[in-house]
């Protein structure tokens, strides 16, 4: 089990600090939530972890690997997967293809074998197809298996987004507002999925979410961001009692 | 080598005549001919009237019974000045069983050279590129090659120029047809023709040549030898006359130069609308439709150079 540590990370966009001097430790096997008002820098920190942004200063380490300058595909190969806040699906492809793409690095046959498509390629495809089917089953996406993703309802696309991240079989899963724009039933579904993931796969989860009720219920640990700075960290109880946090949230709402 | 090739040409010509006359004995023969040319596409301003000329001419031949009871049936196909289509047309003609082939562009004549030889298909191209004759025995040029025409013009310039070495520019079509003679003229210069080639201009589709003419003028160019189709020359002439370089023609009869049709060459029975050799003398330019002019002005001793020979 690997620990993710973020040390004094600063991220600047043309003079504006999206993150300033952010430090946090993500313990393995837990659900860690990052909360904060809009524009607080939550997505930015996920972007830094997953390699889409590179911190202006500071360092991100995953176990003994430095992620500070890694690119997304390198990060993915370390077992870190991400579900995006704004859907980033392959909208022209079927759900199945979207998930099979997440098995990209596991399909270890070469170009010639792929061209002939007997033996190894066929076997690996079938094996990974079975794996994908497991995720489809798990995320209850069976009715949509062969539908084009772009035509599905928003809630389901969100679920595909999470499913695709899961298909990468990550040790660390970054979920960016997986429940945004969902009704209460759909939210319950997603929460159930998250709890299942932890239970069945023992995946470390970083959850970014606006719904404080959900966050307080399921998180093991919470970091609160405001204007790119960590203003409070702790267990849900500790955070709920933190004055700075209350101030930020009341000032915001 | 040179002589052998000419012998082959002469021999095969003789052969054709013999064959032609043998067939003529059986009255009422129809000879199939094929013509592939650019009715549309690049150079179609020349190709289109050319096709009409050929059509008219063979109608004339048939109507006037120039071949007695025999008739010529010439199929005309558009090739859009493209080699690939010309090839297809030629294959089509072969399937139809033509006995004589008329081609058009330089590019396709060169490309199909081998086919003509393989098929033993006598061919008259509308292109008089000297390279057509290299390594081929079935292509016939009814008049001097472009190279011969251009070198003839160059020699004319040298012979009639007074003063120091004349400075000449060449204004050519951006294709094999235009580029062909350039190297031969250059060879003639290298061999001692007292002339300086200042610049070779490959024209585009410009509608204005003022800048080019001024540039040539400033480089001290005194003559422009053209190797291209009508419309670019017309454009150049228009600008030349506007710049005060009054264009004059020579040749017989001297076609009068009007802005609308600066160079129009058509002989009564065989239409060669492509007047390719045009010369402008700066600052008092002279324009020559080559096709009319070459047989009279070409020096007797002049031998058409063959590249590679």
């Amino acid at each position, binding site marked *: 089990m690997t620990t993710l540590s973020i040390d004094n990370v600063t991220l600047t966009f043309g003079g504006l600090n999206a993150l300033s001097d952010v430090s946090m430790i993500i313990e393995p096997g837990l659900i860690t939530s990052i909360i904060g008002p809009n524009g607080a820098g939550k997505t930015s920190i996920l972007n830094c972890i997953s390699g889409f942004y590179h911190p202006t200063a500071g360092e991100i380490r995953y176990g003994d690997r430095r992620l500070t300058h890694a690119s997304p595909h390198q990060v*993915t190969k370390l077992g870190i997967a991400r579900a995006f806040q704004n859907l980033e699906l392959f909208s022209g492809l079927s759900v199945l293809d979207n998930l099979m793409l997440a098995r990209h690095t596991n399909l270890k046959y070469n170009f010639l074998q792929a061209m002939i498509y007997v033996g190894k390629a066929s076997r690996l495809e079938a094996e990974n197809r079975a794996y994908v089917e497991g995720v489809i089953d798990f995320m209850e996406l069976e009715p949509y298996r062969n539908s084009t993703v772009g035509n599905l309802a928003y809630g389901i696309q969100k679920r595909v987004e999470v499913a695709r991240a899961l298909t990468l079989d990550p040790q660390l899963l970054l979920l960016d507002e997986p429940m945004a724009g969902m009704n209460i039933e759909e939210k319950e579904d997603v929460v159930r999925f998250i709890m299942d993931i932890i239970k069945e796969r023992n995946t470390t989860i970083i959850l970014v979410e606006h719904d404080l009720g959900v966050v307080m219920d399921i998180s093991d640990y919470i970091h609160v961001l405001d204007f790119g700075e960590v203003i409070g960290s702790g267990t849900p109880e500790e955070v709920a009692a933190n004055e700075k946090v209350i101030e930020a949230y009341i000032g915001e709402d | 080598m040179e002589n052998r090739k000419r012998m082959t040409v002469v021999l095969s010509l003789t052969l054709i005549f013999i064959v032609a006359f043998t067939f003529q004995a059986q009255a009422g023969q129809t000879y199939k001919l094929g013509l592939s040319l650019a009715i549309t596409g690049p150079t179609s301003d020349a190709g289109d009237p050319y096709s009409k000329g050929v059509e008219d001419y063979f109608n004339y031949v048939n109507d006037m019974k120039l071949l007695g009871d025999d008739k010529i049936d010439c199929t005309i196909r558009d090739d859009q000045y493209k080699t690939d289509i010309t090839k297809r047309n030629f294959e089509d003609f072969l399937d139809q069983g033509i006995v004589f082939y008329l081609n058009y562009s330089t590019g396709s004549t*060169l490309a199909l050279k081998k086919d003509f030889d393989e098929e033993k298909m006598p061919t008259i191209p509308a292109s008089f590129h000297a390279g057509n004759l290299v390594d081929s025995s079935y292509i016939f040029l009814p008049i001097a090659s472009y190279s011969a025409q251009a070198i003839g013009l160059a020699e004319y310039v040298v012979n009639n120029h007074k003063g120091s070495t004349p400075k000449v520019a060449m204004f050519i079509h951006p294709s094999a047809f235009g580029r062909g003679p350039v190297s031969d003229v250059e060879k003639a210069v290298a061999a001692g023709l007292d002339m300086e080639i200042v610049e070779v201009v490959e024209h585009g589709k410009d509608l204005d040549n003022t800048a080019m003419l001024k540039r040539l003028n400033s480089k001290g160019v005194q003559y422009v030898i053209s190797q291209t189709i009508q419309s670019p020359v017309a454009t150049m002439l228009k600008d030349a006359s506007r710049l005060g370089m009054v264009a004059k023609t020579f040749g017989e009869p001297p076609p009068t130069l009007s802005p609308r049709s600066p160079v129009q060459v058509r002989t009564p029975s065989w239409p060669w609308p492509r007047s390719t050799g045009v010369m402008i003398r700066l600052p008092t330019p002279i324009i020559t439709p080559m096709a009319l002019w070459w047989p009279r002005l070409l020096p007797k001793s002049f031998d058409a150079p063959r590249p590679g020979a």
Partner: protein
Amino acid sequence: MSTNRWLATGNYFTSYQDEQRLFFTHLDRTILTMFLLLLFVWPLLFTLSNKYMLVIDNILIAVVAIIGLNIVTGFAGLISIGHAAFVGIGAYTVASFSRTLGDSHVIITHAWPLMIVLSGLTGAVFGAIVGLPAMRLKHLYLAIATLSFQMIFTWTINFLEFFNQGQTISISRVFWFTGKLGRKDHYLFWYYVLLVVVVLSGFMVRNLLRTRYGRCLSAVRDNDRAADAMGMHPGLTKVYAFGLAGFFAGVAGALHAYVYRGVGFESFTLHHSITYLAMAIVGGLGTLNGSFWGPAAIITLELQVETLAEHAGQILPSTWNLATALKPFSFGLVIVLFLMFEPRGIANWWRIVRSYTKLWPFRY
């Protein structure tokens, strides 16, 4: 397994390897087998004139090229306005051998299958190099990069003495086990070669498309950020797409060189690149069978318009030169009509026709 093996009545797969099958019903497979058989057998039954054999060869050459273009533009979504130049690279690979060794050197006349593969590889290398800007550029900017390659290609061929300044470089007739090919068999022989190449390419690409090497193409087309997050290098994937497209283009180029027995620059101009794009669009971008429909449709159309323009050219006053405009005009019209009314191309009609062979409940 379904009781009816001929029509799809539902999903009866019992294993995932079952599901990988290319043909879902016996009907599908039988039709394709019969069709392929027919393609191989018909020339034995009746002879077509050389003119039309050449047209058919030409269509098949274009099919190979369009399979490549579909990979880069259809599947990977990278507009390539220089595809004809890649085809040219293949043709000029053969031509280079002809220039240095002579046009009837054994390498050209006997080792022609090797030459074809070699041309494909050269095309792939050039494709990959030209695809390098795809690491950074997108959309129109990338299209401009491919356009500039087209320009550089035409310019280079036109001005280098080695390439005969763009004039035709001849390629000799090849040898087969029966000896040197004559004029009579030339186009027929290449028809069979082309057919084999097309069938092989078709199956190869069909297989690739259901593996990671095909899926990654659609991934970078739909969303290259997400593709990155799936663990692939999106830039390199695009370069790979260009390389693969270059390979097919190169093969097509070599075949063009052999079929026409010569290589001249004018077969590989910007105009041809645009025509290739039109073929891909009309056939159906991002579909394999569209690569067959497009060339067939466009080349047939071209033939028709040519005949029309030829007649028009003889009737209309030549000074207007309307006939010249006829071809680009009708050509543009067809593309616009397809973009407006059937952007998914002829492949979509094919999809609709095929769906009639399925019975309720549908496969999905």
